[in-house]
């Protein structure tokens, strides 16, 4: 038991490192004490189909016809595969995990990364809520910006529930990044 705790907390360092390694260069710049105010959520720049806000943090881009950028779409896919079982469909929450479409109204990008990578525990009030440490889970961490961007769009009501109706094409850099992160196909 204690062994388990030690092992998992030993992971924390690794997990944080993994988060850093996987994050975009933009993250390194934004790696200062988490600002309390939310990012401006306005895409002011883009690089290879990935959009950034004024703080240099990743964000979404939604066209007038509802067409979403690739990262938002990929984030929807990965969220639904990796996070939905606890956090409910479309970031709406469940009986045992919070609605991330609400949480990201206040949670900063840096805090989001650290919570995903390191986990979180709330064992009070008969609830036994435990967020796992996902810092070593490639199926999550290789797509962490995608998931963040999708949930940011959900928390701003920029995308609705369910699968986004249309998407920008898959950028080559995204595919290369995923292949490098996930390793060779098995």
């Amino acid at each position, binding site marked *: *038991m204690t062994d*388990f*705790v030690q*092992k*998992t907390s030993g992971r924390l360092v690794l997990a944080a490192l993994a988060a850093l390694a996987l994050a975009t260069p933009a993250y390194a710049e934004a790696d200062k004490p988490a600002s309390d105010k939310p990012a401006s959520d306005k895409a002011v720049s883009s690089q290879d189909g990935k959009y950034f806000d004024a703080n240099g943090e990743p964000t979404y881009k939604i066209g007038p016809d509802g067409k979403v950028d690739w990262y938002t779409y990929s984030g*929807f*896919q*990965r969220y*639904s*595969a*990796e996070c*939905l*079982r*606890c956090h*409910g*469909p*479309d970031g*709406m*929450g*469940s*009986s*045992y995990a919070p*609605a991330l479409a609400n949480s990201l109204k206040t949670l900063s990008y840096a805090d989001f990364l650290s919570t995903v990578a390191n*986990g979180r*525990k709330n*064992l009070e*009030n*008969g*609830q*036994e*809520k*435990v*967020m*796992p440490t*996902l810092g*070593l*889970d*490639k*199926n999550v961490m290789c797509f962490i910006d995608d998931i963040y961007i999708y949930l940011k769009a959900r928390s701003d009501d920029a995308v609705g*529930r*369910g*699968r986004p109706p249309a998407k920008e094409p898959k950028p080559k850099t995204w595919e290369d990044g995923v292949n490098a992160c*996930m*390793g060779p*196909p*098995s």
Partner: protein
Amino acid sequence: MNRLVTSVLSVSAIALSTAAFANESVLKNSADPKQWVIQAGSYDNNRYSKLDQINQSNVGKLAPAWSFSTGVLRGHEGSPLVVGDVMYVHTPFPNIVYALDLNNDGKILWKYEPKQDPNVVPVMCCDTVNRGLAYADGKIFLHQADTTVVALNAQTGKVEWSVANGDPKKGETNTATVLPVKDKLLVGISGGEFGVQCHVTAYDIKSGKKIWRAYSVGPDDQILFDPEKTTSLGKPVGKDSSLKTWQGDQWKTGGGCTWGWYSYDPELNLVYYGSGNPSTWNPKQRPGDNKWSMTLFARDPDTGVAKWAYQMTPHDEWDYDGVNEVPLVDQKIDGKDRKLVVHFDRNGFGYTLDRVSGELLVAEKYDPTVNWATKVDMDRNSPTYGRPLVNAKFSTEQNGEDTNSQGICPAALGSKDQQPSAYSPKTGLFYVPTNHVCMDYEPFRVSYTPGQPYVGATLAMYPAPGGTHMGNFIAWDATKGKIVWTDQEQFSVWSGALATAGDVVFYGTLEGYLKAVDAKTGKLLYKYKTPSGIIGNVMTYQHKGKQYVAVLSGVGGWAGIGLAAGLADPHAGLGAVGGYAALSNYTALGGTLTVFALPD
């Protein structure tokens, strides 16, 4: 320290134990309708009680007699036990056990609360439910979330022995109950979403010593198959029947988990259960039939060796775990008495097999919306005999990775999940809680990391087309494969049913109603709204000459995922969503036992 306690206690357990076999204890006690000593009520898993004080004419007067808060807020599955004058109540993680004195208004006789590492919580798929305790030979058996199996002295709550059945660090957890059979305790395991190679294990009921372990997938000596004697659809399975259906070493992370219900036929000396999905949910990544995932097994409880096996969903493409209950009934088919095993699978087919030989007799849809397969091939001479005929449009394998296959019915949670059905020998009908939910399913590539989720598909679930309800409670004729009556429910029915000799059938709903319906017609005779949504199973017992009905409420589990959000139909236009309001408009969290009786 744990080890020290265990070894000291196992010495005392040996000294105190009697020569009686557990099956005698379970057989004797489950034959007494005043008690409820294993989760399914009896070995045949019929969930039928001979008690008839509460019947069609008076059930309308039923009223709560007493209640008990468990102090835990998460999803409450399973049911309490009653042994003599004591009721045993369990909770989800942290898996507290209470012994309540029925002679003293439910006063707590003892309480057992294991110390478990909370890191097991997020490793459990879909909430921290536990489907309850079992009693045999003076012991209460609990299989904890962290896979520790404990035998508690039923009188004192003291641990007599404990054993680790798995390792949560590898994604191995438990939500299921256990089954005492003869001098052994049969125990399953969860972890299909973490790439666990799952198994059933028999422990010595007196000491906790491991006797045998039978994996669902792997080499013959691990799955305990005899290539010549173990049969499937009447033919010997042959050598390497599982290995041949996997690519390379993929069976090592192959899933086939065993978290469902187990039944036992003492005359045939066979144990029946089903195995779960192959890992991952992306079918493209694991070519082959992936045997023996999604399979019904009949095994000898003394040796673990399989007598027969039948794979219902070869090469699963939809997460249709085969773990649901396998009730045993004796009914006539074509005028001939048959020993049958019946199974309502997640895949939407209701199967009836000969439980001696494993011969497939009936396989029909128990929800008319099921569309992933047109039918199960019943032609013995066909090369696809016994296999589902998959509808290409809904094949996530054929549509491929990164393609969203739409409108698949049922959804991954199945036309029915683990919530067990009941059978009344008086009507000859099964009473089945069902889901009426469909899905979109998009598989994609995932990588395997031990102890991390290994899922590989994006799912969206929504109510089946053409209705505004997400559940049905049905009566089913297993000899013909026909629905006899249907009661619609707004939400999936996630509560185990109870049939009684009073010709009343009970079940719970996600809004929190305990309902009593007429066994012949399905007519609603009584309902009462308990403090929270019901995902527990209804049970009954008699104390001091009076019949009681009891159920745990406490919403959660898979159903809790839809609690906050509701399920939206992505194909319906805007505005349609309102028809499927979120469950949170009806109920909130909280574990409570409510016990009902007729007024004096």
